[in-house]
């Protein structure tokens, strides 16, 4: 019993502190500056919850009362009744705190219905601050402890609390913003219900027009986006398949190099390909210029539009498609092909009638992934699309542009979300269980037959130029930073690097004079904070999904994975809509960036963790429990040390994603917290290609260095002769990423 009382006392202490010891509401300059200590507690701006209740904010008293009930419940002796009391008051506490936060805004009631029920409020309330948040956390903990005492999850308080906390956080950082955005589409500026904007936008011909089919007019942005996504998905699937076939079924000499390509999209910021294409084929591009001077071909603007975006996206997503398809192509059991040959089928027939049909579900999978990626892509359309954008850029311009029409942004975001979620659901339900890839534990000793000759020539004809093109593009990225003015003055220079990364030593201190340093350090700081958080949250979730059985576990897993199909632009727009006003105000802070990264990248950690953990024998954790260790200690001492490769993968991936992502970030950056990618996009918009390219290549180099560093830091496990576990080691980093893409 003492153990239960101890943890309950801690939660109750947190609850008490929340109401008495720290400011209840948000403080403009930030809680951690501790400037509030001087005026505490008398100044209403920094007063604790208890003083606000006395001072007239009576709606807070329900929460305080519930906290008192919890404290009283501590002294109930019957464990079942005590547990029930704690669970109920904890749940009600969270409920009331959320309700009052949503119901009472800056200037009074948010909803008309509460106004008529309770009368007008003279004074509203600011956003929740440290006290309110701590009170919420305390209630969630008390709720979990209550359930644990009633024997839920075999009475394991750590597990119950983890699940409750995760559900709580996912609700706040995924469902609440998306929900706010949906509601925001139906609201006026002042928050009252007004579907006009929604109706006007959803019927807007510039979204839905089918003019291009009839001839002449351009099609609506929704159709253009869909068309682009289908073309990109088709292109990258075919290219990916060609690569996979070359890598597995031919005697191509540079197979290692092919595999290396799969790493590129992970470390390349998404708009860099578009940028490099501009340098080649843009109006001032090398190719355009030389064609013009050699053959007098007028420099065109063909690159800026769907064609250009399409090329950039196929280039960007082919490696991902390759990553998915190589498993599928390798997975077709050689014995099937051998069987076909012994049945007198020639190579051509074997390929068309046996190998290819067996790969079909994998191909469909790669197609859907390409589709989702293209829909969600923001960087390339931004760089290449100009004003003829796709949904993700239209959303952006609806908010930042002169239009400033949040309702339009919300409507576009909803359309985009519908497309990606449909694709995601199709992938989940239609394709699940349809995988014919026949990888078995049995050593399959046969060898794959080689490709029919025409096909072999065909795939080589696709792969070799593509590889050279990729080399040129990346060469461009490295080289472009050292050229004075691209296309006009090709003399070599270090100017761009100097401008971006110059340092000055004065009086023994370093002055960071380069223009890039500010955003560079912010990016590093935020990526370094969010990577371990993402890994921790992701792996904890994986542990819960694999090792614990609880009601709604499948829904829980599904909801998490679904958040990955939400395009970054949608996340960005929903975050600014949700976290700009009470009850939670975070825009312009580092916190919102960190939250965004953690909850966007977590599914990868989950996937990797699930894969690795399923290979650890469950009796290891159970043995630890029966030896008297808590689940927390079990995770720390037994599971984590055995999961090191998965941890590395999750850390690296979330770190790199935090550096390279742009779509959500561009909505969330502020003058104080500017991220590298957003800054680079700004440079591109100003036409400062040289500095932009220099900065991008610097980022790529830094990421490679840091990936290597992580690998050294986390290190290897010392488990001799234990090949079952060590099997994970080699596979984890790449499979985690492959699985995230297939998730």
């Amino acid at each position, binding site marked *: 019993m003492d153990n239960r009382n101890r943890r309950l006392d801690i939660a109750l202490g947190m609850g008490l502190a929340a109401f008495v010891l720290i400011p209840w509401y948000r403080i403009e300059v930030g809680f951690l500056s501790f400037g509030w200590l001087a005026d505490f507690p008398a100044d209403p701006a920094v007063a604790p919850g208890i003083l606000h209740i006395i001072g007239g904010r009576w709606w807070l008293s329900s929460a305080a009362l519930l906290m008192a009930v919890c404290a009283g419940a501590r002294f109930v002796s019957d464990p079942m009744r005590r547990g029930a009391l704690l669970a109920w008051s904890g749940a009600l506490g969270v409920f009331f705190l959320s309700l009052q936060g949503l119901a009472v805004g800056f200037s009074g009631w948010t909803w008309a219905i509460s106004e008529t029920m309770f009368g007008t409020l003279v004074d509203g309330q600011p956003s929740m601050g440290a006290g309110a948040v701590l009170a919420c956390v305390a209630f969630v903990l008390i709720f979990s402890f209550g359930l644990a005492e009633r024997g839920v999850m075999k009475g394991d308080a750590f597990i119950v609390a983890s699940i409750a906390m995760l559900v709580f956080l996912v609700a706040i950082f995924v469902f609440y913003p998306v929900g706010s955005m949906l509601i925001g589409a139906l609201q006026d500026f002042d928050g009252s219900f007004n579907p006009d904007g929604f109706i006007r936008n959803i019927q807007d011909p510039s979204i839905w027009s089918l003019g291009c089919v009839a001839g002449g007019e351009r099609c609506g942005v929704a159709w253009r986006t869909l068309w682009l996504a289908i073309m990109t998905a088709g292109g990258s699937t075919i290219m990916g398949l060609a690569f996979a076939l070359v890598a597995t079924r031919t005697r191509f000499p540079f197979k290692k190099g092919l595999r290396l390509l799969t790493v590129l999209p992970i470390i390349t910021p998404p708009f860099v390909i578009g940028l490099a294409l501009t340098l080649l084929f843009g109006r001032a591009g090398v190719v355009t210029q030389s064609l013009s001077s050699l053959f007098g071909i007028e420099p065109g603007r063909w690159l800026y539009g769907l064609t250009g975006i399409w090329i950039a996206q196929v280039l960007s997503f082919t490696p991902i498609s390759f990553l998915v398809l190589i498993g599928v192509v390798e997975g077709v059991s050689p014995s099937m092909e051998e069987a076909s040959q012994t049945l007198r089928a020639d190579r051509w027939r074997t390929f068309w009638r046996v190998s290819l049909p067996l790969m079909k579900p994998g191909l469909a999978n790669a197609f859907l992934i390409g589709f989702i990626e293209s829909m969600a892509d923001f960087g390339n359309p931004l760089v290449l699309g100009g004003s003829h954008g796709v949904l993700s850029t239209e959303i952006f311009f609806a908010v930042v542009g002169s239009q400033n029409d949040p309702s339009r942004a919300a409507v576009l975001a909803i359309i985009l979300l519908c497309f990606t979620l449909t694709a995601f659901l199709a992938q989940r339900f239609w394709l699940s269980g349809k995988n014919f890839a026949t990888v078995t534990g049995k050593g399959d000793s046969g060898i794959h037959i080689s490709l029919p000759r025409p096909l072999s020539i065909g795939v080589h004809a696709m792969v070799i130029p593509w590889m050279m093109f990729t080399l040129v593009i990346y060469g461009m990225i490295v080289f472009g930073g050292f050229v004075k003015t691209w296309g006009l003055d090709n003399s070599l220079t270090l100017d761009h690097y100097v401008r971006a990364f110059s340092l000055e030593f004065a009086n023994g201190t370093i002055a960071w004079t380069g223009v890039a340093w500010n955003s560079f350090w912010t990016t590093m700081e935020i990526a370094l904070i969010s990577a371990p958080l993402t890994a921790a949250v992701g792996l904890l979730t994986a542990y819960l999904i694999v090792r614990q059985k609880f009601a709604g576990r499948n829904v829980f897993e599904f909801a998490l994975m679904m958040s990955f199909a939400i395009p970054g632009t949608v996340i960005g727009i929903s975050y600014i809509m949700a976290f700009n006003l009470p009850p939670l105000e975070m825009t312009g802070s580092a916190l919102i960036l960190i939250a965004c990264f953690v909850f966007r990248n977590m599914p990868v950690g989950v996937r990797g963790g699930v894969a690795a953990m399923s290979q650890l024998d469950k009796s290891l954790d159970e*043995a630890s429990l029966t030896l008297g260790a808590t689940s927390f200690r079990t995770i720390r001492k037994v599971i984590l040390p055995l999961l090191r490769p998965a941890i590395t993968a999750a850390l690296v991936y979330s770190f790199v994603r935090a550096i390279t992502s742009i779509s959500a970030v561009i909505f969330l950056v502020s003058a104080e917290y500017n991220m590298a990618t957003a800054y680079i996009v700004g440079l591109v918009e100003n036409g400062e290609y040289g500095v932009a390219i220099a900065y991008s290549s610097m980022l790529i180099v830094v990421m490679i260095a840091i990936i290597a560093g992580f690998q050294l830091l986390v290190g290897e496990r010392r488990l001799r002769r234990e090949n079952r576990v060590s099997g994970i080691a080699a596979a984890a980093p790449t499979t985690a990423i492959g699985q995230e893409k297939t998730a």
Partner: protein
Amino acid sequence: MTTSGSVVFKNIRKQFGNFTAIHDLSFTIEPGQLVTLLGPSGCGKTTTLRMLAGLEHPTSGRILIGGKDVTMLPANERDVSMVFQSYALFPHMNSLDNVAYGLESSGMRKKDARERAEESLKLVGLAGMGGRLPAELSGGQQQRVAVARALVLEPQVLLLDEPLSNLDARLRRQVRTEIRELQQRLGFTAVYVTHDQEEALAVSDRIVIMKDGDIAQQGSPRDLYEAPASAFIADFMGEANVVPCDVITVGGQDATIRIGAFEHRVPSRNARLGPAKLAVRPNAITLEPATGAAFPGQILHSAYLGAHVEYEVETSNGKLFVVDPAVERPLTPATEVAVGFKGRGIAIING
């Protein structure tokens, strides 16, 4: 081992979704006893043991350990420890750290924990092996580390889930003797799960035989072997032949049974007059070449196994499985034989 606790299961029921693994299980284990849960695969032995350990929680019912209600307690707060079928040694820790793990979990200082772990390893005959990783130990040594790791916590009850199933036949016999010897020397309560009746007979004070999530019969090894309560038990405890018979007289110690024209006297053990079943051990049947016997049979198959010969015999009362030590006189298939019974190894099953 200072304390050894009793175990009480009261009306335990366990469901997995719609499937009921344990229906209504009640039994009591006295302190210091070694009780075996025996039964065919899938009958719910592991589930029962895991509920005792706190790794599963019963759907309804109470569990008491050492007189204290632990039904709602999580595994790490119960005073039991468990030896897993797979041993579940932590592969990244050496044997000493494995054994010290539980002590450190309960807050003991690292140095003391290691000293105690060292002693415990010595107890199971692994002194000086503390530095080895599990992967560097043989199967039998790993098994002993697992036992040491559980015992070092001096639990009220030690749980063993098929602890010998990963060992080869020869080692199995040796280790089971060691476990039993250790249990009697230290006097702890133990619950032992196995599906091997010979193992159960060899180590147990008492045996609980389970079938489909219920107790089929419990008692001392001798009771179960000699007075099986049902054909299932008789068969399970020694591949008994179950033959329908009539009890024609019951008097004092003995009863007379009749099968066709064949009569035999067996220990009565509360037998009632009328139709009954007879459990006959394979080695309690005699076969003599003869024609026109009172209980005639015909050899179907025979298998020479060195120390004895196994026969399958076709009779009018079904097939009989016979183990005959007379290897010097093999009976070939199709031989007509007279079936007879020995004095021991035969029991009447009522009802």
